């Protein structure tokens, strides 16, 4: 129990902070923060598996998050039959060509000795393939994008339940991680960081600009939800009754029937938004707990010990007969898949897919700050890091405003410096997170909840 005391204290403080937001701002905001904290926690768990268990630095979190989001669109949106009928065949042919290219390249790599001839053959296959794709896909893309461009203009998805897409998001991310891992994992740590960051940028720019796939920067809105819609709740009698029962004391204070009805309507609207967020919170909590149990079990299994050995001394581990390259690739895929799941969860929570919003600042560097601040190599620490940093990230502006007002209280309202500072309050979040990271790295480099190695 004593071992877990600091964890329990840290988590209780965090919960208290969120509850304080609920009391002082509103429960809807508090729950929104809580949900996003949980999504961040999943991302941090993924990054922590790579960095904390294996010492692999992955700055490409943005790319996996975006792929997870793409999975939601491709799985849950209803297909667009017109688009399929004009361009479906061509696009599928292109997909076939790509698969053919991959397999023929693999075949050549396996069966022909390393030589100039092999290089020319592979280059030839790639160039011919690309030209074919350009010829076949070009007109099809134009036609697909012309199908009701204001609403669809893309192929649509499969129309399956949205929860299914969380798994698919993980698979997509795992697929990308496999490619990236094959290409980049041999690189030294800081090269790996840069390479993964740039590959993630490539992925995001493809998602942004291939409109036939997921409408690109035109965004997909109104995605399916695993939770009820607010508008449905507001009209369903059982929900109104529930709210009535819950707030009966407040309602009894009303003077007239019409006033009572007004108050009730307002309460129902507030309650519906809280209810939907609670549904999401429940689902996210399930995911976080499942992942936590699995990662915790993995960390203290023989496999986890092996990963730590590889992290701490690669040569020694490989001398003991551990396949370092293979294990690195495996853990890279595993961590990325978890990030992909988080990406899908986030898009599901928002109900919209906005490729333009995937920026390295928000989806790579902030997540890394979470990992470092929370505690590398400790899953509880990683989750806590997600909570703490996201909370700061969101609440930095109100906190900054409070302090600005406090320190400039003696200045008149029209003072230029005061107005300027108040206008720039949102940017204090960068300052807060940056200074937080620097302080943690300097004075507690192992994070808030440090890694704990249990010896049997």
């Amino acid at each position, binding site marked *: 129990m004593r071992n877990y005391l600091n964890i329990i204290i840290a988590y209780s403080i965090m919960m208290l902070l969120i509850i304080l937001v609920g009391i002082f701002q509103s429960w809807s905001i508090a729950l929104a923060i809580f949900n996003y904290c949980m999504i961040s926690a999943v991302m941090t768990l993924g990054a922590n598996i790579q960095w904390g268990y294996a010492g692999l*630095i992955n700055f490409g979190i943005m790319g996996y998050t975006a792929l997870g989001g793409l999975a939601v669109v491709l799985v849950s949106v209803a297909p667009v039959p017109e688009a399929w009928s004009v361009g479906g065949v061509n696009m599928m042919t292109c997909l076939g060509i790509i698969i053919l290219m991959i397999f023929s390249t693999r075949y050549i790599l396996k069966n022909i000795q390393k030589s100039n001839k092999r290089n020319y053959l592979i280059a030839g296959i790639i160039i011919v393939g690309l030209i074919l794709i350009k010829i076949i896909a070009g007109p099809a893309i134009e036609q697909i994008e012309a199908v009701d461009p204001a609403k669809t203009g893309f192929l649509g998805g499969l129309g399956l339940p949205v929860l299914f897409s969380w798994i698919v998001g993980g698979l997509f991310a795992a697929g990308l991680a496999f490619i990236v891992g094959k*290409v*980049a994992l*041999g*690189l030294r*740590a*800081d*090269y790996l*960081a*840069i*390479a993964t*960051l*740039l*590959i993630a*940028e*490539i992925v995001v*720019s*493809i998602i*942004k*600009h291939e409109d036939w796939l997921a409408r690109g920067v035109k965004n997909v809105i109104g995605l399916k939800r695993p939770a009820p819609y607010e508008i449905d709740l507001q009209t369903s009698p059982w929900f109104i009754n529930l709210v009535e029962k819950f707030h009966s004391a407040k309602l009894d204070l009303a003077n007239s029937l019409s006033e009572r009805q007004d108050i009730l309507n307002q309460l129902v609207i507030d309650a519906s938004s809280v209810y939907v967020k609670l549904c999401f919170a429940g689902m996210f909590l399930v995911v976080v707990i499942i992942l936590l149990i699995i990662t915790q079990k993995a960390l203290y299994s023989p496999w986890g010990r092996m990963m730590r050995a590889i992290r701490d001394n690669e040569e020694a581990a490989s001398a003991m007969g551990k396949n370092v390259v293979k294990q690195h690739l495996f853990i890279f895929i595993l961590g990325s898949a978890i990030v992909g799941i988080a990406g899908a969860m986030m898009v599901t929570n928002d109900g919209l897919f906005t490729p333009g919003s995937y920026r390295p*600042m928000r989806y790579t*560097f902030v997540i*890394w*700050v979470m990992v*470092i601040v929370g505690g590398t190599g400790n899953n509880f620490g990683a989750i806590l890091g997600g909570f703490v940093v996201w909370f700061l990230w969101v609440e930095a502006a109100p906190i900054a405003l409070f302090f600005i007002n406090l320190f400039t209280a003696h200045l008149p309202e029209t003072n230029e410096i005061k107005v300027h*500072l108040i*206008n*720039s309050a949102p*940017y*204090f*979040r*960068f*300052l807060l*997170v*940056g*200074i937080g*990271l*620097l302080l943690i*790295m*300097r004075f507690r*480099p192992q994070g808030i909840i440090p890694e704990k190695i249990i010896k049997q």
Partner: protein
Amino acid sequence: MDLINAVIVLLNYTIIPALTYGSQLALGAIFVTLIYGILRFANFATGDMMSFGTMFAVLLTYYFQSIGINFGFLPTALLTIPFAIFMMILYMLIIDQTVFKYYRIKKSPPVMLAMVSVGVMFVTQAIIRIIIGPTDRRFLDGEKFILKATEFKEMTGLAEGLTIKSTQMITIVVTIIVVAIMFWFLNKTKTGTSMRAYSDNEDLALLSGIDPKKVVLITWIIAGILATIGGILYGLDKSYRPFVYFNNMLPIFAAAIVGGIGNPYGAFFGGYVIAFAEIFLTYAYKRFLVYILPESLEPNSLMQLLSTDYKFAISFSILVIVLIFRPSGIFEGKRI
């Protein structure tokens, strides 16, 4: 005649813009590579440091304009360069003393320093946005064009015009001057030689009596000069926007690695490789081909290899290809 027209088209739309953009990237890439070679970490605050220096140039330009100082037909921003460089170096030295020094003395692994530089990146971004805000700003004044398309057409009687913006000329000339001075400094002076020695083998350099404090100080000074000038030139040519500067870090990194990280010549060259690749692969060749091909073969599509949306993606793909086939860069990396 058609051939000359075709060359003019290429010159106007690809070669001159690529040289300009390449120069801007090259300055940033040398900055990255110097820090990597001597201080031994990948500086993720690169873009924001460039932005920090440029911010002072923008503010001072506005101030100079308000009190009526200008630089004739040249942009006022050029006058502000010394002040901006001074502020930049001051900021870098403060950051070095308060943040990086601790890890350098402790001999932390490079990854740790890279993570620390992420923290510096956050703080720098915050300072910039609090001081100047995130909006787009133009601070170019003076003569906009050296050669206008119409003038060129009148002069030569060709069908195609050639435009040279003054910012393009300034960028190329200033880059050549700065880079020439820097290479002279690194190769011919005693301090420069000691810096190269420190980069090659730290222990040996320390044994032969090189003062590490001085090397670090000089490195930050050179880095400050490069970052500020690179940032100002980019801002003059396009516009100043903090977010764009942060994003520019990525092609700059690509340029530094493609050239061979730690090698300033490589970085200088890498900047142009990235710039030329980006512009040549996204340029629509239709107008060029119309001039050189016989009429029967004239293309009816744009003849564009990749859409301009993928401009950034190209530089990253080049980087990935280089990393796979030649991880040390086109020139051997890790040498100054």
